[in-house]
């Protein structure tokens, strides 16, 4: 298609208008970003010494949850849910740590590629079961979370194994300046490299289409079943990345699934992805992960009970989502 085709008879959009349209579409994400900035200022006020160390701590803890959240966000956007994310991460973690024990860096690379494929495969299994059996996704993935957990225990009964050195170096320590932790850069780069091209592809469109309105997607010629299976596969891939990041940051493989599945759902919702499907992206949920991490670290600093922090997370989740629907309601009426 030639460029001439694309010219609209009306005048071209100015960049201000373009920006306004972009901002309007990403209101939620920008709002979260604003909230994050306020939270950082608040943190700095209560704890003037908050700096490189604190940031790095939060980033390292946010890395596995970030990948878990990206994994969950993709399947939620396409109208499903996956409760087996943490179990898949644990399984990938023990497989990686066991295989890497005492091995060369080159072999470590082969392991990484191998477990990423394993993640895709687990996701394909989840998705195929959901589509073929027609059992509700929440039931299938809950059941599969036991399967993957059991598989992890078969590989390794107690935490063990080790990580190759380069994998650790990839996630730990700062990059360039002290304030920029490697874990944060790694998370953003990996998610961006996979998600941005995916979102712009026909497959990415199909994720949104199926999540938004299955009948319309079907009538538009989208293969609904195949799209769902591939969404679960992407979720599996990101869960595998989460598992790898667990090995990288702890240098161990732990067969017990960590607290990632439901916190990831919380971050997804807080990040502006509709649980009904079809709306949102990955940027919002990742910012939400950082916000939740920062709140927890502030609570620790203020010497508040850790359990109170968990209560606070719940309250914030409900409050923010209510506020969101309220704003949307106001806007749709205006």
């Amino acid at each position, binding site marked *: *298609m030639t460029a001439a*085709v*694309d010219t*609209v*008879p*009306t005048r071209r959009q100015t960049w201000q208008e373009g920006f306004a*349209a972009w901002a309007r*579409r990403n209101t939620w994400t920008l709002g979260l970003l604003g909230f994050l900035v306020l939270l950082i200022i608040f943190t700095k006020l209560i704890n003037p010494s908050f700096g490189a160390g604190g940031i790095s701590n939060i980033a390292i803890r946010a890395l596995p949850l970030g990948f878990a959240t990206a994994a969950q966000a993709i399947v939620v956007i396409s*109208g499903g849910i996956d409760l087996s994310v943490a179990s898949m991460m644990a399984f990938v973690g023990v497989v990686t740590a066991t295989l890497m024990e005492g091995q060369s860096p080159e072999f470590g690379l082969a392991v990484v590629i191998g477990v990423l494929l394993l993640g895709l495969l687990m996701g394909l299994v989840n998705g195929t079961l959901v589509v073929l059996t027609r059992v509700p996704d929440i039931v299938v993935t809950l059941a599969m979370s036991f399967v993957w957990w059991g598989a992890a225990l078969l590989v390794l009964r107690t935490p063990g194994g080790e990580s190759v050195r380069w994998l650790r170096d990839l996630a730990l320590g700062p990059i360039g300046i002290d304030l920029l932790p490697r874990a944060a850069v790694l998370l953003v780069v990996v998610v961006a490299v996979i998600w941005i091209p995916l979102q712009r592809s*026909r497959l990415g*469109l*199909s994720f*949104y*289409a199926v*999540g*938004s*309105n*299955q*009948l*319309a*997607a*079907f*009538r*538009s*010629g*989208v*293969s609904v079943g195949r799209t769902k299976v591939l969404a679960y596969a992407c979720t599996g891939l990101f869960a595998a990345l989460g598992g790898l990041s667990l090995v990288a940051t702890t240098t161990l493989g732990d067969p017990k699934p960590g607290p990632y599945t439901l916190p990831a759902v919380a971050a997804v919702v807080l990040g502006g992805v509709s649980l*009904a499907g*079809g*709306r949102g992206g990955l940027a919002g949920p990742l910012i939400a992960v950082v916000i939740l991490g920062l709140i927890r670290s502030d609570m620790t600093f203020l010497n508040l009970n850790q359990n109170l922090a968990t209560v606070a997370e719940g309250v914030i989740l409900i409050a923010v989502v209510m506020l969101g629907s309220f704003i949307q309601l106001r806007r*749709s009426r205006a």
Partner: protein
Amino acid sequence: MTVTTTDLLLEATGIAKTYGAVVALKDASLAVRPGEVHALMGANGAGKSTLVKILTGAVRPDRGTIEVRGKPRMAHSPAEARRGGVVSVYQEPALIPDLDIRANLRLTETPLAPFRHWMDELGISGLDLSRMAREVPLATLRIVDLARALAIEPDVLLLDEMTAALPANLTERVLEVIGRQKGGERSVIFISHRMIEIGSVCDRATVLREGETVGVVDVAAGSEERIVELMLGEIVEDISARAAAGRPAPQAPAAPRLQARSLAAGHGLHDVSFDLHPGEVLGVVALEGQGQDELFEVLAGSARPRHGEIRVDGSPVSFHHPADAIRAGVVYVAADRAEALLMQRSVRENIALPFTTRLAQWGVINLGNERRTVDRAIETLQIDARAGREVRRLSGGNQQKVTIARWVAGGVRTMLCFDPTRGIDIRTKHQIYLLLRDLAEAGAAVLIYTSELKEVQLVCDRAIVIFGGRVVGEIDATGADEATLLRAAYNLTSDAQMPEELAAEVVAGSALATGSDEPSPRSPGAQQ
């Protein structure tokens, strides 16, 4: 027909499809020549929508063949049908609400230049493609959907009720553009409830009745009558005679039990008024989607009217919840039994449910009382309760009797029945007709919509005709034969008021309903 099979663009022969025990299509055929606009006609339940689903690959037929340009072609999905050159546009636009228009075009791999060309032709230029589909007015989305289909130049373009909810000016443009498709290589299959549109744009019409193709008519002046005749088949004289004979003389008009004044709701209902008297069965005659769904939802209290007033026994009421309606003595029997019954619970519990909840406010349920009342209701309605432990094991007819019985047991004043005999065997149907008549004779007021026009003369005293969300006429049901009713339903008797003009106001501000997967009950009240 003088056409030889070789010069047909699309030919479907011997198509059959059954869903469980229900025969949707017995032997349907359709032959479309290149360059023609071909109408597909049939009354409710004739099998039109099943045939459309088969042509577009959404449903697989049990038997039959489909050929496009002489080559066998059986699509297994809309995507495959699309690749095979059959593209369809429905009344509900198939656009994804959460994607912008440009992404929607990309989803169907629609080239941009021809799309813009057709948008201009259809009278909408300068649409901002970066707008989310859910923010674009519904009428515009329908045009976008059509332009998107035209842009990929399909061999066969299938328009299923596409114009049903378009404003007049847009309908005109659409018909004009469709008309211009004539004489070329490609064809259009056109489905519409409006005879005027059929007459103005179609070359031929294929008529379906009870799952069979009963005729192909060349569309010309006066062919409407012939089409209606074909849609009806032979009229069953004896039934109507029997119905008329068994009817008692109309009683002296009492004060109306239920009154509707200028009711408007949702996208479909614009202006409906009527009086329903005690002791009478009032029918609602309407084609599918003329606003009757919204009307019954509003009257039953599950949706709120946009405009207008409901009066019970002369005093205005406002229902915020079905419980309000039930308290006012207005009860609802739905077509879909699953909406009304607790399928896993017993017949007894289901019948007792509405008045149990009333008694339970004082504490313990009086089981002896309950048993007696329920038994009486089961007997009155001749419910076969042998499989009574779980309602879902009853036949559809017996299930529907249970939904009626629960209201009869409590003593019914006003009953609203929405297509109560849908998918029910003929014997049970007659029992239900008799039951409704008995209820009326005992002083109840009954409002009934039925998709089977035959039922109107069997059960109703009077009937109002709704077309395009408005009452367009009133018929004395005892004197009405099916042909009269069908003509009335198609609004053929009066063409003074065109519904298109009225659709404009509804369409203008409305956004595409955001997509939940299952059809949720429309409740305009809840959105406010």
